[in-house]
């Protein structure tokens, strides 16, 4: 029920899932959604520099999914 997030620069690690301040629940989709990257824990180290063009700290997101069989069909 989570996404794992780590800073590519300083390695600060966070786990976003239900109850995390960066996560809301999408009623229509019935799914928790990571919606606010500014609410992620990122304890900036002195050597942690944001991307020079975007001003963002580059993050590494690791997703998790559970899949099951589909009724096979042609490509769209």
């Amino acid at each position, binding site marked *: 029920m989570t996404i794992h997030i780590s800073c590519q620069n300083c390695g600060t690690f966070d786990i976003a*899932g*239900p109850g995390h301040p960066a996560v809301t629940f999408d009623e229509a989709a019935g799914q928790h959604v990571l919606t606010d990257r500014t609410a992620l824990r990122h304890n900036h180290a002195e050597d942690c520099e944001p991307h020079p063009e975007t001003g963002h700290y580059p993050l590494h997101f690791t997703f998790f999914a559970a*899949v099951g069989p589909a009724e096979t069909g042609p490509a769209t």
Partner: protein
Amino acid sequence: MAMTDQALVNKLLSALFTSSTTFTITPGTGGGSAFTITPPFRLHLFSTTGSSTATGTENVAGTSPGYTSGYPSGGLSLGSSAFGTFTSGASTNGSAVTWTATGTWTLGVAGVEIWDSAGTAVRYLWGPLSTAIGASVVVNSDTVSFAIGAISASGLNW
């Protein structure tokens, strides 16, 4: 309610998703058309999750820069053997996949689908992310990945 013997589910799913070579299943008389499985299987990202009978809305480069959509060459390969041998009706992916964003992903990612590499690609597996990611959360130079074992495939509901 599951109705298929689990040992058969294990054999069928292992045959489908551990093969590195194309093979064809030919039904007996009256059993319909031959069915060809074409590895490697490819993981695609979806802003709207599909269902067991219909594909979802795939992410595209225009709203997810750094992602390549379409079939059969879009998404990313799950390697020569997409999943390990199935036990208890389930298995996980054996290779990691990673995209690097080259701009803000103005559409989020809600789910995934796994298609084969046939010229007319066939959809095999679908499902939601355990936690989705919203619009404009992924930005330039971020990486989006599924680690080895992060995708769990189950046929227990067959």
